């Protein structure tokens, strides 16, 4: 099982706060997962998830490059943060 979460503007633009996906029983990396989401959900998702300033986190840590995923991982997509 993979958990995919979306926050803030990204969540609103996708009209989706998160998904649970079955683990594919094969190797899977972050960029491949993203490509699968874009293929499955269409151009609007591709436009949003590939934005230059999109931040990606795996297991609640920001990643700046592609990385291998594992069964049980939590993946998140969100815009630049604006707290404080």
């Amino acid at each position: 099982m993979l958990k995919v979460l979306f926050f803030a503007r990204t969540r609103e633009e996708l009209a989706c706060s998160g998904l649970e996906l079955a683990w594919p029983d094969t190797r899977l990396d972050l960029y491949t997962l993203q490509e699968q989401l874009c293929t499955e959900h269409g151009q609007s998702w591709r436009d949003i998830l590939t934005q230059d300033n999109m931040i990606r986190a795996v297991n609640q840590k920001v990643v700046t490059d592609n990385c291998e995923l594992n069964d049980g991982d939590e993946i998140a997509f969100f815009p630049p943060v604006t707290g404080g």
Partner: protein
Amino acid sequence: MAEVAILENISINVHEADFDVAGLQRGLLSGLSEEGAVATFTGYVRHANDDRQVFTLELEHYPGMTEQSIKTIIDEAADRWPLLAASVVHRVGRLSPGDQIVWVGVASTHREAAFSACEFIMDYLKTRAPFWKKELGPFGETWVSARQNDACRAARWQDDSIS
């Protein structure tokens, strides 16, 4: 490998309710015996942002990652300065102009470490902790954009000359 300072007196709270800064400062100091300085920062919801009047601010966060990222920031601060205790409170949900939104408190034996660490934690919190603000006003509603100035303020801590 360099020895990493471990700070045990850390408090991190993310919640909707308002907070009492006097109580937080007492809590920060409780159990300490070497304190000589406390620096605190309180952030408030602005009445206007970029000349736009704000009626309501909505704060969203990423539960779990928020607390972990603040812990990482405090650990980095404790590695740079000799701290005795550090505490961060951040509100989420619906807030109004003038409301308290964030509080950072740092205790140390001397003021220099307390001042610097408090500013460091705040600068990094603004650029690394997963909070997002949405403003509601006469213009409708809009997500607040990240500010380049905040990124610059955080980046200057990478320059060893000021740490």
